[in-house]
């Protein structure tokens, strides 16, 4: 059981993520698994990027249209547990300071964490190795 005061953040030493057209796609650079969430799930991901606590996330989700607090708590426990098990997120100590909470005007949909393991072989070599220093390729406009 994850405690309400617990905070989480993206496990950036292992994963890369992008929110595109409202869908969050996360790739684990170590093992080639990748994940997607949309709607409410993307809302949760944005709050995890802000290191919001479970209680704060629960409160925000419960404010969505049609949300029932008890259900929201259960769904959030499941979602966060799945992301922890896949090493997509990790515990965080402090909230991100000076960032206003994100608000969303939408109907509540149970968040779904889609897990894909079909491209582990294709992603075994070429994505960036976790933990390497950044040395960007010099782009033409900056050359």
């Amino acid at each position, binding site marked *: 059981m994850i405690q309400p005061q617990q905070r989480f953040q993206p496990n950036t030493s292992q994963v*890369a993520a992008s929110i*595109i057209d409202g869908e969050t796609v996360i790739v684990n*650079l170590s093992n080639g698994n990748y994940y997607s969430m949309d709607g409410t799930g993307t809302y949760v991901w944005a709050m995890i990027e802000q290191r919001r606590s479970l209680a704060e996330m629960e409160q925000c989700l419960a404010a969505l249209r049609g949300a029932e607090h008890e259900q929201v708590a259960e769904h959030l426990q499941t979602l966060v547990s799945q992301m922890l098990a896949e090493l997509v997120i990790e515990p965080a100590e402090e909230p991100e300071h000076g960032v206003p909470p994100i608000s969303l005007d939408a109907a509540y949909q149970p968040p779904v964490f889609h897990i894909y393991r079909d491209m582990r*072989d294709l992603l075994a*070599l*070429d*994505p*960036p190795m976790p933990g390497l220093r950044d*040395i960007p390729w010099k782009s*033409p406009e900056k050359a």
Partner: protein
Amino acid sequence: MAPLISCVVPVFNGARFIREALDSILSQTYRPIEVIVADDGSTDNTAGIVSSYGDHIRRVSQVTAGPAATRNLGLRHAGGDFIAFLDADDLWHPEKLERQAARFMARAELDACVTHVQLLWETELEEEKKSLEGHQRTQPVPGYATTSLLARRELFETVGTFSTELWFADATDWFIRARERAVQIELLPDVLVYHRMHGHNLTRRRSAASGAEFARVLKASLDRRRA
């Protein structure tokens, strides 16, 4: 008669290692081959090194446009029935092409062949190598990357060329598109490519910012499959 294999070496300022890469191509037991260096506007001595090989190697160049555009440049100048790529800092096993070509002889339906790849760390990165001890990439890994690819030329018409909108994940995007089209790709268990890790290679440039590009490529693939 054995088919001609075009060996394309995309390079950007690769003077430090390109000689070893080219020697590993010229040492291939397979013949006939042609070697094309596709130069992405290098400003180091890459051109001088390539010219020292005389007529054995052809160099084509462009104003710097990125890895995908450089691979496509090499493709446009390739005359072989089969295309192989070798990054300018990597090495091939002498029998790499011969063993892959044998698979095409054995399997008429085969479209492409990749091999396992072993990463090699230069001494300047000894500390990093130690920190990665036990990581799966210190073991031979499936080489779904251009540096181990041997493909029928017409496959680039079926799957398309490399997307120049991508700066880091163009090869992964190509392999994903190939898989979506049910292209027949065989992965050899043999380690026939050695991918060098050093202070300035492309793999090292693919870190924080490039990770998001891989996520974008996967998103595009999900969209295509859900359409």
